């Protein structure tokens, strides 16, 4: 029996910052020989848990591809609390499956390995949470190719509030190359660009876009819409509590908020033409005139 998976799994318990302090040659050796990587690292691979008795594997039936700090993971978990959906296992390890394959081969073998993460009993659907599925441009088409029939559910949040929450979450990463750090945080709020890219690889009728603010206001209404979209029996769903979104506080002074409104306004304007039912009044940062 190979020791590699066991050793790799044990090494992954060591915090990523400790790993990153090691010389790059040592890291490379540990990565290649023992698989000491973390989800999202280049070279990360992990085996899915064994499928239970009577379960079949296959591509996910639905995908929740972010966006980060908009409550997407909580939404994914809420969606999967339905008897017609298989309880996901190891979704945090599967989440970044295609994220490190930008420069690597990716073929039917890769897709088969991806599909092993989605066991389900007969009559059940399986879902995939992918925090990079919209933000990393090479991930979107790979996900679509690996899951050709999947429905996609995208959760958006006022981009300025999302940015505040994201900056709080990732504060520790700001130390070096401030511009690149900020670029990633800011870019994730250009939703129209990301949705337009997604719509080049899936048809519009397989996309449902929701707003986190609507989810907070009326969780059951949104979950009924989700169940219709996924063809689930809404009557079998237990009531869902309103979500708690990542909190960014009120760190932006008015002048910064004005700069960001100006930066995002054109993209938000485009959302109105792109997302049926998009409710701009839920985003007070963008309800006034320019």
């Amino acid at each position, binding site marked *: 029996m190979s020791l590699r998976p066991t050793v790799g799994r044990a090494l992954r318990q060591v915090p990523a910052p400790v790993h*990153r*302090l*090691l*010389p*790059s040659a040592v*890291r490379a050796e540990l*990565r290649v020989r023992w698989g000491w990587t973390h989800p*999202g*690292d*280049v*070279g990360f691979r992990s085996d899915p848990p064994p499928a239970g008795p009577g379960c079949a594997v296959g591509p996910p039936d639905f995908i929740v591809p972010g966006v980060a700090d908009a409550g997407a993971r909580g939404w994914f978990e809420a969606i999967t609390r339905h008897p017609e959906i298989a309880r996901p296992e190891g979704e945090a390890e599967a989440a*970044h499956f295609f*994220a*490190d*394959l*930008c*420069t*690597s*081969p*990716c*073929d039917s073998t890769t897709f088969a390995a991806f599909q092993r993460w989605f066991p389900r009993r007969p009559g059940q659907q399986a879902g995939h949470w992918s925090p*990079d599925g919209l*933000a*990393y*441009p*090479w991930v979107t*088409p*790979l996900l679509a190719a690996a899951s050709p029939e999947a429905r996609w559910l995208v959760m958006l949040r006022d981009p300025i509030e999302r*940015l505040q929450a994201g*900056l709080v979450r990732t504060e520790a990463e*700001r*130390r*070096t*190359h*401030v*511009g*690149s750090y*900020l*670029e*990633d*945080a*800011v*870019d994730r709020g*250009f939703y129209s*660009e990301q949705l337009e890219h997604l719509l*080049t690889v899936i048809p519009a009728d397989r996309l449902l876009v929701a707003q986190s603010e609507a989810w907070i206001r009326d969780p059951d209404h949104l979950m009924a819409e989700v169940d219709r979209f996924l063809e689930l029996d809404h009557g079998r769903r237990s009531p869902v509590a309103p979500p708690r979104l990542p909190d960014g506080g009120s*760190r*932006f*002074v008015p*002048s*910064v908020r004005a*700069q*960001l409104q*100006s*930066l995002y306004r054109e993209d938000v304007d485009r959302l109105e033409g792109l997302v049926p039912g998009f409710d701009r009044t839920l985003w007070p940062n963008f309800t006034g005139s320019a």
Partner: protein
Amino acid sequence: MRVPVVARQAYQRLPVTVRSALVHAGGIYAPWDEGFDFTPPALHGDEVAGPPEFVGVGVQKAGTSWWYSLIAEHPGVSDRDDVPKERHYLSRFAVEPFGPAEVARYHGWFPRRPGTIAGEWTPDYLCYPWVAPVLAMAAPEAKVLVLLRDPIERFRSGLTFRLNMGAPETSATVADAVHQGYYGRSLRRLYRHFPAEQVLVLQYERCRANPEIQLAATYAFLGLEAFEPPELRREVNVSRREKVPMDPGARQRLVDGYASDVADLVSLVPSIDLALWPDFAGMTS
């Protein structure tokens, strides 16, 4: 203070992350680091400071250090050795206030002798969406320079560079390198704040093939008289390291991913010669 050779060699053998931690502990920061002191440099002699006459905004790993050095060599341009080519001053204003005090401080970074012009070239600016509006506030008359390179080769060089600089081997680092290649999207944002006639878009491959003509066009764009630097084909900041390997299928996926943006770029800048970017040359037909 002279540092012994042995100590310098030992320092160079340390991982980049450790070297960064050591210099930061000593209070030394690069302009792109959190903690850099943006107090403008003191003026020398009869120098004055003011808004830059030119700002290069892109792109990383496309020969910008080489091209800036050729511009800086012109007698009509002021360029001090103690002021970095890449100011990075505007890189942090995504979420910080930018008003008259910040504008004045930025101007302080452009000392120039009477009768000369001054500028900078921060290659990351083009892909930072907040930079064009703040640059338009700080230097609305500045001539803007953009030096582009085949997006695939730029990606490979950029990723190799970032990893060698100690960036973590994560998909976020890869994503940063990919995002910098969406030239069409970035130029569209730039053109909202600077008219096309105020922007000169150059191609690295064309500059390499015919630097005399491209440099003459650059000088003319900047309002400088004709000048011939003694050595055009110098190598500045050239990486000797092997680029990250790329699977052929992955390369094609990246080409496909960039294709619509490259088409957009050509619609914005018809002078772009796609024959110089072999992965996209077929798009010309």
